[in-house]
């Protein structure tokens, strides 16, 4: 148990530092605001006006879901890369089959024009 004491110490120090820094900047830092600075931060875009339940293009969903598919593909590649030597030729063939099927999917997406933003 005592082995973890430094970790506990670190957590306490970090919490204290965070609280202290926030407190110091809040109380003694200068405040020069303008309307643009007060806007909620939405990854660089203008914030959604009014009600957040506005309609927007279904295209967003398509791109997002395709991102997930290929993101997961990469997630599967990591363990294979780590165990590359142990898995040997069988692992390589297995992975090529997997990549081939996803490649077909990618080809399908491109030919359908799903990624063309109109």
């Amino acid at each position, binding site marked *: 148990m005592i082995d973890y004491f430094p970790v506990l110490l670190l957590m306490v120090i970090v919490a204290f530092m965070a609280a202290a820094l926030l407190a110091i900047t809040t109380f003694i830092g200068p405040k020069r605001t303008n309307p643009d600075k007060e806007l909620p931060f939405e990854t660089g875009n203008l914030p959604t006006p009014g009600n957040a339940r506005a309609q927007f293009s279904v295209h967003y969903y398509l791109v997002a879901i395709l991102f997930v598919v290929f993101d997961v593909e990469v997630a599967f590649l990591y363990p294979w890369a780590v165990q590359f030597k142990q898995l040997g030729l*069988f692992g390589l063939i297995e992975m090529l089959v997997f990549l081939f*099927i996803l490649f*077909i999917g990618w*080809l*399908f997406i491109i*030919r*359908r024009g799903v990624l063309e933003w109109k």
Partner: protein
Amino acid sequence: MTFNPTDLLAIAPEIAVLSLAILVIMIEVLISRSEEVLQGITAIGLLAVMAVSIFVRSTSANVFSGMVANDDFTMYLKVLLTGIALLAILMSKDYLKGKNFRVGEYYTLILLATVGMMILASSTDLVTMFLGIETMSIALYALAGFRSECSKSNEAAMKYFLLGAFSTGFLLYGIALLYGATGGKTNFADIGIAITAFGGDNPAPAYLYAGIGLIMVGLLFKVAAVPFHFWSPDVYQGAPTPVTAFMSAGPKAAAIIVFLRLFGWALPDMSIAWQPILGVVAAVTMVTGNIIALSQQNIKRMLAYSSISHAGYLLLAVIAAGTAGIRSDAAAGMLFYLVAYYLMNMGAFTVAILVSRARLDGDYQINNYQGLAANHPWIAGAMALFMISLTGIPPTAGFFGKLYVFSAAVKAGFIPLVVIGVLASAISAFYYLRIVVYMYMRPETAESSKDLKPTPAWKTIMIVCSILIIYLGVMPGMMMKLADSSSQKISSPNRVVTLK
């Protein structure tokens, strides 16, 4: 976990269908969007898959460490499921014309659903079962909403997807509990062995019962048994009709088979717990499905409720399979029933497409069948045969299907259930034969005297289904022998089933 390359032979049909799906979608995007080419390739490919299912066999008894079954029973199921896909594709041929569908995607989705169904029907492990159910369902959600310009079709896809995803949650939770209760087992055989350890001083944990119940909910949803049937009429009505035919035959067959395998082969020692529950569900399903079908005016909805009640009859076989000694009888009866049900349902939906197409508004009202026999004696005759077979009147395949399933249930001692089943079939005669009455005994209308223009593809389906229904109804011996011999050899774990 060792990998044996010959194991791949056992899933050769699945691999073949998957390759076919990839081939079709690639041909559509890269080479040709011609409907004839895509249809031809899909159909020929499926015939090849049938041959592969029959002739390519793995000798290994323990395929993929027991995750997939490799026996005659599974082989027949794969042939049956390929047959369902083949007829659905044949049925779609002329249906898709002028509908502005992306044909390649449509065929690919049907093929992918077939892969899922095959995995499901051959699974002997909770993991492969779940994989199969999901592969099948995701393709079906998309297929149900394929008529994207039609709001009913969108409604169907949405309802099917939301409820289907919800039921998957139940199934998954049940799998997790079963896994926990049996000490980390997912294989059906291992689960069966783990469960025999319970009893006496070591009672089964409560969450084992909960797990079995939740799995039951998930599977009952897939076979559309009451009270988990509410999605089915809306989805059947909204989906494109060939897809409806496909959905009513394929996924139901695959799901009920895994039901049989799981409950009959992995959980027979728990049958005291699940047989009564499933008995009530089966009774309610048979009665409710048939009674609601009485008031339907739309033939697709009527066939949807009819397929609910047929799920009830099939559940009788699952219940019977929980009794030691009746298992293979029940499995054989179910196999025969599935073949018969597939033939008559596919045939009935084909006639439904034909009749609705002749009308300008293309609707599926039962009134459209008035006086059909006067101008179209052959089509009306085929429809009458399908309806008689669905009712279960000899000499048709439907009669022997019911006979074998009911007799397995009688042997297992569920006589009250069988009585309910027979009475429910008597109710069903009213709405099935009503169509026959409409066709033969009502005067023809301006609509029904129109030429239905059956194309060669639709004629082929009607002829093949009719001939096979009569053949199986007059000489069921050969099919029954096949079903019997294959059911005897369902790969069973190396253990003695003990009756408690």
